[in-house]
């Protein structure tokens, strides 16, 4: 072979090799970055960063768990005895309270006397717990001590029932309501979309004439190309008022509305994949069925659907995957209440919607920011699971044909 040709072929081969390597590495790096940022949450303290909790040195309590801090500030624990101290009522002290005790003159022009005054307050009261910024915090002395801080635990993240990322002193990063919200919305979306999508797929592949098929199939695939924010807008202006009116609800932004929108969005995927699966049923099997006196319907539900079964389940799983990861439309119509949902007609918040809504206001590198990254990791793992399942099923399908 011509040496120039050989070299140029080598060169092109090298470019392809390079580009595939670069792509793989970039993807890997993104995943590593995601997990690295997310895992940082477990090494950040439970108390909001930049702040500390201070006690009087006469108080025998020296550390408090995450739950205890939360219960103290929620007023559920009001005596030091409960957390191992003396029998004294707990007095909560927040930074702002100092301004109602001392006038601005007493605190100095640039608040230079602030630490001193705070020191005074804590020294005076043995039952106090003060939540103060480090900047003005009193020096640790024989009268004032800072509570040693724990880090946020995996348990609190995975099993926590409250997502309150901006409460003080301890923000709550419990993802249970978000996961439940995501799964609820996605599950019902697939419940609405699968029967409908399967019906359409059967119609297109088995019943419609080729003329109708040529019109309907591209039309449905066009649906997949509509940007999700447009679906969200449609949901917000059309579906939300309808759900509100029909269900006689106070707000129309509910999990149900989200499910409807997601169902519409998952339909093209479900229809086109299951239609392909149905059409892949060999003609020989259909003919065998017809030749035995089966009608078209009998052939469809006794031969075609069982044969396409794994293709249909792949369609369902990919539909779920799409629904779980969908952000914009859901953000717009579900109302975003980060509470554990008790019915379909309540506001819920999904994982992707949380990330999109909160990332802008989470300070970079802070616990909230890391928690959002960790949510991204959870979402990644969930969708990864679904992809693996669908891959497994379609492998089984291809071995069935062979």
């Amino acid at each position, binding site marked *: 072979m011509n040496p120039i040709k050989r070299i140029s072929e080598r060169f092109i081969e090298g470019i392809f090799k390079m580009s595939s390597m670069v792509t793989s590495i970039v993807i890997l790096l993104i995943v590593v970055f995601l997990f690295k940022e997310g895992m940082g949450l477990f090494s950040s303290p439970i108390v909001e960063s930049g702040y500390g909790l201070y006690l009087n040195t006469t108080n025998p309590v020296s550390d408090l768990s995450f739950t205890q801090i939360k219960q103290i500030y929620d007023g559920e624990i009001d005596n030091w005895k409960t957390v191992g101290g003396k029998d004294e009522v707990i007095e909560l002290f927040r930074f702002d309270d100092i301004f109602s005790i001392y006038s601005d003159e007493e605190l100095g022009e640039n608040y230079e006397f602030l630490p001193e005054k705070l020191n005074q307050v804590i020294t005076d009261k043995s039952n106090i717990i003060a939540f103060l910024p480090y900047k003005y915090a009193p020096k640790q002395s024989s009268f004032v001590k800072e509570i040693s801080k724990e880090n946020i635990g995996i348990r609190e993240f995975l099993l926590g029932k409250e997502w309150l990322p901006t409460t003080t002193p301890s923000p709550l990063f419990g993802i249970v309501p978000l996961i439940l919200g995501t799964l609820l919305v996605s599950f019902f979306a697939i419940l609405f979309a699968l029967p409908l999508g399967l019906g359409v797929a059967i119609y297109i592949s088995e019943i419609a*004439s*080729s003329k109708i098929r040529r019109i309907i199939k591209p039309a449905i695939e066009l649906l997949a190309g509509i940007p999700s924010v447009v679906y969200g807008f449609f949901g917000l202006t059309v579906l939300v008022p309808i759900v509100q009116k029909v269900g006689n609800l106070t707000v129309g932004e509910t999990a149900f509305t989200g499910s409807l929108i997601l169902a519409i969005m998952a339909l093209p995927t479900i229809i086109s994949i299951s239609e392909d699966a149905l059409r892949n049923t*060999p003609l*020989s*099997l*259909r*003919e*065998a*069925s*017809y*030749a*035995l*006196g*089966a*009608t078209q319907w*009998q052939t469809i539900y*006794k*031969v075609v659907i*069982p*044969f396409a079964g794994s293709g249909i389940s792949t369609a369902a799983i990919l539909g779920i995957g799409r629904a779980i990861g969908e952000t914009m439309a859901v953000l717009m119509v579900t109302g975003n209440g980060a509470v554990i949902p008790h019915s379909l007609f309540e506001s819920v918040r999904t994982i992707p919607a949380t990330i999109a809504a909160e990332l802008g206001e989470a300070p970079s590198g802070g616990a909230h920011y890391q928690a959002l990254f960790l949510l991204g990791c959870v979402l990644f793992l969930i969708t990864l699971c679904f992809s693996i399942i669908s891959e497994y099923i379609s492998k089984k399908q291809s071995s*069935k044909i062979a």
Partner: protein
Amino acid sequence: MIETKNINFYYGNFQALKSISMKMEANTVTAFIGPSGCGKSTFLRLFNRMNDTIQNTRLTGTCLIDDQDIYEKSVHVDELRKKVGMVFQKPNPFPKSIFENVTYGLKVNGITDKKYISERVEQSLTSAALWNEVKDKLNQSAFALSGGQQQRLCIARALAVSPSILLMDEPASALDPISTSKIEELIHSLKSEYTIVIVTHNMQQAARVSDKTGFFMFGELVEYSDTKKMFLNPEMEQTQNYITGRFG
């Protein structure tokens, strides 16, 4: 008994069958031979209206089975196909168990009597000379069987609905010689109960199994006579050329 009068059949603008009239007697084996694309399979598939599933086709002429025009509006195609069974070129068992394959035809015809069903399964598998090989593994997948066994299972499946006519579209073309000879023996033994029409590429096979043979070429029925006469002393030169292997 099958009788056709002046059959013309078109795929779009292409005429696949040209004014074919022939009569196939009950309880005989009729073989259709001819080069590829001569229309013999198309003709066979008219008898159970299998061509109905193909779009853009047209038929003129009459096709009578037991003196009933099967293309008349009052005829239900699924009823017709119960009476006229079919075995295809490649074994095409359903991806179900052996038992379910045989009972499929009964089930779609609304038969639920379990005792009758299991009797029919044994009878049809016995008629298809498969019973002894599969009686202990009826619940296994039909795909676990060899190609020849699968084809006999397809025959059993067709027999289960008690047809009177059995159409076979090159039933042994995908099989090895031993399986082929088993299918041929089977055709012999089924002749007493069924009217059999078989399409084949293999002229020795036509000579071995059939009573009458029709030779097709370019959509026309060139010659139709007793098999012995056709192979020993054909009337037409084209037939002579084909069976001696000069083309085809």
